């Protein structure tokens, strides 16, 4: 295999990984963010207290989070096939990645939103804010720095899972590392893939930390 072939293979894997991670992160936030909000506001003494919803949701999230990713991925294959048309390849992997990540995202969002001072929420209530106003104009904007750093961690986690997905028919850098580096004893490919993954994590974390600081006005 020539260097050019290797390079294009890695480039291709990187591209697949990127879009897999990007879309999985987006979808898991689309599901996890509202659930995180719900977890916080249904708590006792919050703006929409509802003990049954809160405990059912909490339990469901805990159950999903305790299933090992590899098992979860295999378990949802029929569902993935049903929705995506196939269970193989990087596009199909978005489904199990999203299912694995959204409970984690919900918990991360919950932790961030809980940082918002109760007094500030109360002040908004005293001004006649509705629950929707409080969530959209107080809780989320006030916890933005924390939400952003949480998102960087979530994205890194999803990147890790996506590499794992390579083991059972997923695409991207993980598949490359396993198919060439492991099964065909190409340690050099394995090493290059690992280096690329490390760089990717660095970049995600750097962007996360920087933008978190950028949106935080408590420090200046």
């Amino acid at each position, binding site marked *: 295999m020539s260097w050019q072939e290797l390079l294009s293979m890695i480039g291709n894997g990187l591209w697949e990984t990127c879009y897999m991670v990007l879309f999985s992160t987006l979808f898991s936030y689309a599901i996890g963010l509202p659930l995180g909000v719900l977890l916080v506001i249904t708590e006792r003494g919050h703006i929409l207290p509802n003990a049954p919803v809160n405990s059912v949701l909490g339990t469901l999230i805990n159950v999903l989070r305790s299933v090992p990713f590899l098992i979860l991925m295999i378990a949802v294959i029929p569902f993935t096939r049903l929705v995506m048309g196939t269970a193989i390849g990087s596009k199909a992997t978005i489904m199990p990645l999203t299912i694995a990540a959204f409970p984690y995202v919900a918990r991360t969002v919950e932790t961030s939103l809980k940082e918002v001072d109760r*007094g*500030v929420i109360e002040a*908004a209530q*005293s001004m*006649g804010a*509705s629950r929707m106003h409080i969530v959209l104009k107080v809780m989320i904007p006030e916890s*933005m720095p924390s939400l952003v750093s949480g998102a960087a961690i979530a994205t890194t986690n999803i990147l890790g899972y996506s590499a794992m997905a390579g083991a059972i028919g997923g695409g991207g850098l993980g598949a490359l590392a396993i198919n060439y580096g492991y099964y065909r004893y190409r340690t050099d490919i394995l090493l290059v893939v690992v280096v690329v993954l490390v760089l990717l994590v660095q970049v995600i974390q750097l962007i996360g930390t920087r933008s978190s600081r950028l949106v935080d*006005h408590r420090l*200046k």
Partner: protein
Amino acid sequence: MPSERPAPSGNVMIDIQGVKKIYPSQAGDVVALDGIDLAIHKGDIYGIIGMSGAGKSTLIRCINRLDSPTEGRILIDGQNILTMGDKDLRRMRRTVAMIFQQFNLLMQRTVLRNVCFPMEIAGVSKAQAHKRAKELLEIVGLAEKADAYPAQLSGGQRQRVAIARALATDPKVLLCDEATSALDPMTTQAILSLLQDINKRLGITIVIITHEMAVIRQICTRVAIIDGGRIAEKGNVREVFANPRTTAAKRLFRTTAEEELPPGKRCLRLIFDDNRTYEPVVAGMILASGVPVNILSANIQTVAGQQRGQMLVELPDDPEGAERALSYLKGKQISIEEVNADELAGTIVHDR
């Protein structure tokens, strides 16, 4: 039971009738408010004072229904706020603004956008809100800080922003929940003057919750003393200060020296009003009785523009000398109370 009284007269802004608040807990119910009746008139600066745990915070939070009373009625400008639905409640809250001890500003918004916030949720257009916010920042003296973030401001400045924000929806009532308790004395003075100014200029009824006597003394027109979930005493600030009738009131007014009265001694509290403050009563008493008298503490306070002096003296052990001193004092235009270490209330032995 809510008392069915005749409708309040036209100048009552906040009418609190038989309000009770009970917090159920496993160790038994906690009664935070135990039948509060209070009428606050339009344009008043009404002080509600009490020790921590007396129920004053619960009471003020009931006035805009951040807490809901277990029993009773609260009318604001004639409207019963306890039976309101969600939508009416939110509309009502725009007319009853509130400021807090911890300011509770939005830390990720600029000062200007903080002041815009209540208008934003009320559906006021952005341009109009900006214009109004700038006017309000002018009123509170922070126009040049419009683009700063709360983290860049001092405590006093943050409270000014909170006041501007509270005024944004043209409220009829401003509730102040320990609004100066986190501020230093100088800043407290400035914030109180601002509140007084707002009361005069805009005619907004102000309710102040505090545990600090100085706050009541400086700006309130009327005061209620709350103790153990009940109103112990209420009325004109000057009268209540001059003649506290209840133990709760006296406990609030007493000085630290009074907490350490010498046990087993006869002690007197002398209360001077107005021009009597400067008369050499003590010197006269010592000359007349011929025995030395120990002064335990003395202070002069200005209450609602009037000077009021308080002095604690310990009578001599010699009973005859003590009698002579007492009879001299009774001839003077001052109030005298016998106090001792165990009994806070004291017995009035001579009333001017």
